[in-house]
């Protein structure tokens, strides 16, 4: 085998979902330039080096934008959360009705099960943990 050993082992998406299954919400931080990013990738999107490392995230952030998706069976929230480390991700805010989710709302993450898979959702920080 002459493959480059730096890239041995599972890929970044698998590493990330394995961590989530173990109850840890991670983002990547570049070992070279210290930039944070999500979703995970093989390279740092800031400096271009193949050096991002999975680290546990604070789980805190705020709502960057939000929409209520209307359905006959009921409405649900979809939000973009800006993590305190900087990266953003799509998620939803639970524990409040969809129309009460506001841009700027401080939120904390929790891991719930969706279709037998752990996923990240958020709830208002004020709701406690």
């Amino acid at each position, binding site marked *: 085998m002459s493959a480059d050993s730096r890239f041995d082992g599972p890929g970044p998406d698998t590493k990330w979902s394995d961590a989530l299954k173990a109850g840890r919400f991670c983002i990547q931080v570049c070992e070279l330039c210290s930039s944070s990013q999500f979703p995970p990738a093989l390279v740092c999107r800031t400096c271009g080096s193949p050096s991002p490392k999975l680290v546990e995230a604070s789980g805190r952030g705020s709502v960057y*934008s939000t929409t209520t998706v*209307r359905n006959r069976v009921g409405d649900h929230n979809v939000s973009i959360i800006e993590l305190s480390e900087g990266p953003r991700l*799509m998620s939803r805010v639970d524990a409040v009705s969809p129309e009460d989710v506001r841009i700027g709302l401080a939120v904390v993450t929790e891991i719930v099960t969706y279709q037998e898979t752990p996923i990240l959702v958020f709830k208002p920080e004020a709701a406690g943990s």
Partner: protein
Amino acid sequence: MTETLRGRIAIAGVGNTKRWDAPGRGPFDQLQEAAILALEDCGLGLGDVDALYCALSTSGLPVLNVAERLGLGPNLKQADGTMVGGASFLFHLQSASAALAAGLCDVALICYGSNQRSAGGSLVSMPDPQPYEAPYRPRYPVSSYALAAARHMHDYGTTRENLADVALAARRWARLNPDAFERGPLTREEVLGSRMISDPLTKADCCLVTDGGAAVVLTRADHARDLAAPPVYVLGTGVAVSHRQIAAMPDLTTTAAVRSGQAAYAMAGVGPADIDHLMLYDAFTITTLLFLEDLGFCAKGEGGAFVSSGAIAPGGSLPVNTNGGGLSCNHPGMYGLFTLIEAVEQLRGRCGERQIRNAELALAHANGGVLSSQATAILGTAATL
């Protein structure tokens, strides 16, 4: 070596099937009809085509399928099936212009067809899973645009009334276009009272779902001058790629149209104040606002007030989406090529009741994905060379 492409390539012919609800016709049927119409428009035939550019949401191998159906294979010297959503065809325009200028080919056909409406109305989902979005069940693509609209409202005080006025301007233009799909009267109250899909966007903030086919034929400018229709010159093009998922967009209120626009203006040697006619891909009302700002027709954050002043409606200072746009004329899944066709028709003076007087310089802008890809083209008459 930098050798400008300004004015070296022309749109020689355009084809538009204008069949917005055509059961019994597949995407390739619409595409083939449009291709024939575009070639006939300039007096060329399928045997003259030696470069093919196409993208479809219904085919993973569009170049192969189209080349086989139109019998183009044996003559093709150049082909490109770049797929970046609705902006694909303006990406093709830039690639085809470069290939023609370099002498790789002589006659390029850019073409598209869709039966999105008669096939059942929903956007055909391509095999492009987004595992970091899917669990949250956003409605694709409208929820992504709704998130951009919500942030624009938060940052700049843009209102739902401002968005509604985009839809009203489009409808007023459509009422002047006998080929527009929706031509009925429309009020602000009707737009605001329309069914909410993904807040703040209602059904009336969303583009139509239609069938349709479109094609354009490109040649070098000297060749175009010998053909049957008045050439419309490609003065500037620019393309830009931003993200795939909406959460990865760096700033939800500023699109990569800033970059594609700057490139197109620089190549054409003109600025926003010089443009007589403007086509902005209006997949949703918010996109018209964003592109007015990002292409320099008003300051960032002022798109809402600009639109509500009546500027882009018939009789306003800046004619925008004069065919009625994706909101009221047609939107067969990927609409980009129709922005070019209306710009060409306006510059040729073929637009009847909606014709802009003395239109010499037009800008067509297309969007793809979820504000993901942006492409700008500046077109002009012979007087602008």
